[in-house]
C-alpha cells in the first residue's frame, strides 16, 4: 500500500516541479528492516518517483558499512539529502507527519544550493573554523518542529563545517535519554549546548556562538 495518497502525490509533484539541480536521497536500511526502516525506504522511493531530478539510492547499513561511514551515518533508518555536494543534511528516523515538510524543504534547499539565512548568520558561518554538529530532536506530531529542522539544515547548507540531523525521538529513545529530551523540538549543538523550542534564527545563532565560545576555552 502506498504511503502517499494521490492528492498528496499531486501536491508533492507540484512542489518539486522545476528543481534546479539533481538531488539524491541516499537511504540506509538493512536486510532485516528495523521498526520504521521499511516505511522510510518506501517513503523515499515514493517521493523520488515524483520528480525527474530526484533519485533514491538504497543501501544496507551492514553490507555497505564503508559507505555508511563515508556519509557519517551511525544509525538507521537514515536519509542523506545530497546534491552536487554532500552538505551534511540528514534525517534519522522516518520523516513522516509534520516532518514530511522538512524532507521536502531539504530537497528543495539542496537543489537550489543557496542558503536562505540572514546576513548576520551567513557572515558568522562563513568565518567558522570548527566543526558543528546539530541534532534536532522531533516527534512527527509536533507542529513546531519543522521550523527547527529546516533552520538547522539551512545552516548545514551554508557551511561545509556544519552538519545537521533530524532525529525522530520515538525511534531513538536511547538518544532521547542521553540528551535528556523531554520536549520537542530540542536542538543539541556539539553535544553540549541545547536549545528548547522552535528558536528563531537569531536565537539559534546566539546559541551556536555560545557553543563555539565554550569549546575554545
Amino acid at each position, binding site marked *: 500500500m502506498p504511503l502517499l495518497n494521490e492528492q498528496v502525490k499531486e501536491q508533492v509533484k507540484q512542489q518539486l516541479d522545476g528543481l534546479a539541480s539533481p538531488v539524491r536521497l541516499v537511504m540506509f536500511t538493512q536486510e532485516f528492516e528495523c521498526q520504521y526502516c521499511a516505511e522510510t525506504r518506501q517513503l523515499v522511493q515514493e517521493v523520488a518517483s515524483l520528480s525527474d531530478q530526484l533519485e533514491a539510492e538504497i543501501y544496507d547499513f551492514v553490507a555497505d558499512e564503508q559507505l555508511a561511514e563515508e556519509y557519517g551515518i551511525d544509525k538507521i533508518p537514515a536519509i542523506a539529502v545530497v546534491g552536487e555536494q554532500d552538505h551534511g543534511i540528514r534525517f534519522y528516523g522516518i520523516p513522516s507527519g509534520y516532518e514530511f515538510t522538512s524532507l521536502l524543504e531539504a530537497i528543495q534547499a539542496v537543489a537550489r544550493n543557496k542558503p536562505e539565512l540572514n546576513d548576520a548568520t551567513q557572515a558568522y558561518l562563513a568565518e567558522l573554523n570548527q566543526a558543528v554538529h546539530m541534532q534536532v530532536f522531533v516527534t512527527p506530531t*509536533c507542529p513546531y518542529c519543522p521550523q527547527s529542522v529546516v533552520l538547522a539544515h539551512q545552516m548545514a547548507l551554508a557551511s561545509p563545517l556544519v552538519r545537521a540531523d533530524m532525529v525522530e525521538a520515538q525511534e531513538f529513545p536511547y538518544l532521547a535519554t542521553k540528551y535528556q529530551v523531554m520536549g520537542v523540538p530540542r536542538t543539541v549543538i556539539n553535544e553540549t549546548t541545547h536549545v528548547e523550542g522552535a528558536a528563531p534564527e537569531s536565537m539559534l545563532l546566539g546559541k551556536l556562538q555560545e557553543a563555539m565560545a565554550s569549546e575554545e576555552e
Partner: protein
Amino acid sequence: MDFEPKMPPMEADQENGVEAFDLVVIGGGPAGLTAAIYAGRARVPTCVLVGTLPGGQPANTAGVDNFPGFPDGIGGTDLAQRFHSQAERFGARIVPEAVIEVDFTERPFTARSSKGQYEAQAVIVATGAAPRRLGIPGEDQFYGRGVSSCATCDGFFYRDKQVVVIGGGDSAVDEAIFLTRFAEKVTIIHRRDELRATKIYQEKAFANPKIDFVWDSVAEEILGNQTVTGVRVRNVKTDRAQMIKTDGVFIYVGMEPQSDLFRGQLELDRQGYVVSDRHQRTNVPGVFVAGDVQDPYYRQVVIAAGTGAIAAMEAERYLGEYP
C-alpha cells in the same frame, strides 16, 4: 505513529522583494484559512502569512470533536491540513513566514516578515492566541525539561510516568485525557472546586481511572534538578501548601491574544484583544480581524472559521468600494 505526511506551505517566489496582493491575511489558523477560502472564491488575489504555527491551534490539539461535519471527530492536525488544502484549492498563496512588523497607517498596508515585504489594499488580522504562562518560579527554567504546553508534541516522553496538568478548561481536560495514553497517572490541578470544561470532557475525565484531581489549588513553584521532579501547590481555601511529585507539568491556563504586533496601530481592549464590530471591522478602515485574537469568550474552531468568513466577505466589499 502518525504516518500521514503533512504538506508544507508553498514558498514565495520573491527574494527580499515586495509582493503586492489585494488581500493579505496574517495568521494561518481556522480563521485565516477560512478567510482565504472565501477570498479565493471571490477571486480576490490573496496571500496568507501563516506564522509560527501552521494550521493554528488545531495543529496543536489531539482531536476536535465539535466541528460540524465530522461525526466521528477529526484529528486536530488533519483538520488544519484540510483547511489549508481548501484555501489553496481556491488560489490563495500560503507562505510559511511569520510577520514581524506591520504598517497600517496608510494604503497600501504593509506586513514585513524576516524574508520579505508584502503590500495589501486590505488586511485580515487572524493571529490567534497562544498559551498563557503561569509566571511562577521554575516555569521558564524547566521549559522543555518537564514543562510543556504541547501534549501532542511531548506526550511520548512521559510513557509510564506521572504528569500533572494545570487548568480546568477544555484544553486542560482534553489534553489530560490524551496524556493518559502515555502516562500512568495524570493529576489535574485546578484552582476551583469544579471544572470549567465542557460536560462531555468532564464525564470522560471523571470516568478515566488514570486521572485524579487536586481541587481549589494553585501551582506556586515548579521544582526539579536536571528535570522536573515536582510542583508545589497551595490550597486557596485552607492556605495549606503541599508538594506533588511529578515528572512533567503541562500548563493549560487559558490563552493570550497574539496582538503585540498591532499595538499602537489597532484599537485593543485592556486584555489585548483586537476591538471589532459585528462586521469584523477594526478601527482602521480596510483592516479586518477574525478568530481568537478578537474573541475572549468562545474560542472555538467553528467560531474562528465563522468570523474568518465574515472578515473575508467584508474585505471583498471594501475592496469593491475602495479598490
